[in-house]
């Protein structure tokens, strides 16, 4: 399962997608909305995605993992829209016969997801400002609230 969704993510959907009787280890990663970024209070986050390309890139990451570890049970889901503090923005589950590979593959999936999957995050600060996040810096500032 590789999916962009506007629905609440619980983690159960990815876990169920990878369940298998021969997989003894399930590693699940959940990214949740933090109440601050580098100490600055955040009110909420907004995520935007390019869904067909994002889902295609997720499937490519799964293919990379199949090549590297021989693991074929992986699911990724990312939510878009406005998310409140504590809500899950992204969930990745990997089921494998052995846990070491499962941890490595799940972490790899998250790293690659952050690199190549077209999803953007906009931080809405407690002071009313909002900005699109880019790697290692704020890409662009805008005080206006998108609708």
């Amino acid at each position: 399962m590789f999916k962009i969704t506007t629905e609440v993510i619980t983690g159960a959907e990815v876990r169920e997608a990878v369940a298998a009787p021969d997989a003894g280890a399930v590693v699940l990663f959940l990214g949740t909305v933090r109440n601050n970024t580098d100490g600055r209070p955040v009110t909420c986050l907004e995520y935007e995605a390019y869904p067909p390309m994002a889902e295609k890139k997720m499937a490519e990451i799964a293919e990379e993992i199949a090549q590297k570890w021989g693991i074929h049970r992986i699911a990724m889901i990312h939510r878009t829209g406005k998310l409140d503090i504590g809500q899950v923005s992204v969930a990745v589950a990997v089921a494998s016969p052995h846990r070491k590979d499962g941890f490595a593959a799940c972490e790899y999936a998250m790293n690659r997801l952050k690199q190549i999957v077209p999803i953007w995050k906009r931080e809405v600060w407690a002071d009313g400002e909002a900005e699109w996040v880019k790697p290692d810096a704020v890409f662009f500032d805008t005080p206006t609230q998108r609708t």
Partner: protein
Amino acid sequence: MNVTVKYFAVCHEILDRSEEEMQLPEGSTVKTILERLEEEWPEIAEFYEVMQMSVNWEYATEHTALAEGDEVALIPPVTGGRDV
């Protein structure tokens, strides 16, 4: 030829639209689109070096040739880098 061009995140904001149809001359590449956008909004050029482009859901370069019906997108930096 006609292509669809999509704008996300900061590009969506800068250009104030999420997508549009563009009619381009035969032989156009991704660069043709970038130049056209630069005419409308010169400051966008300074973002080009950190931005990526896609054609039909695959990353592309400015030299990638376009064909009728292609879906092109401007891809600002994704959320990566910043650790969750």
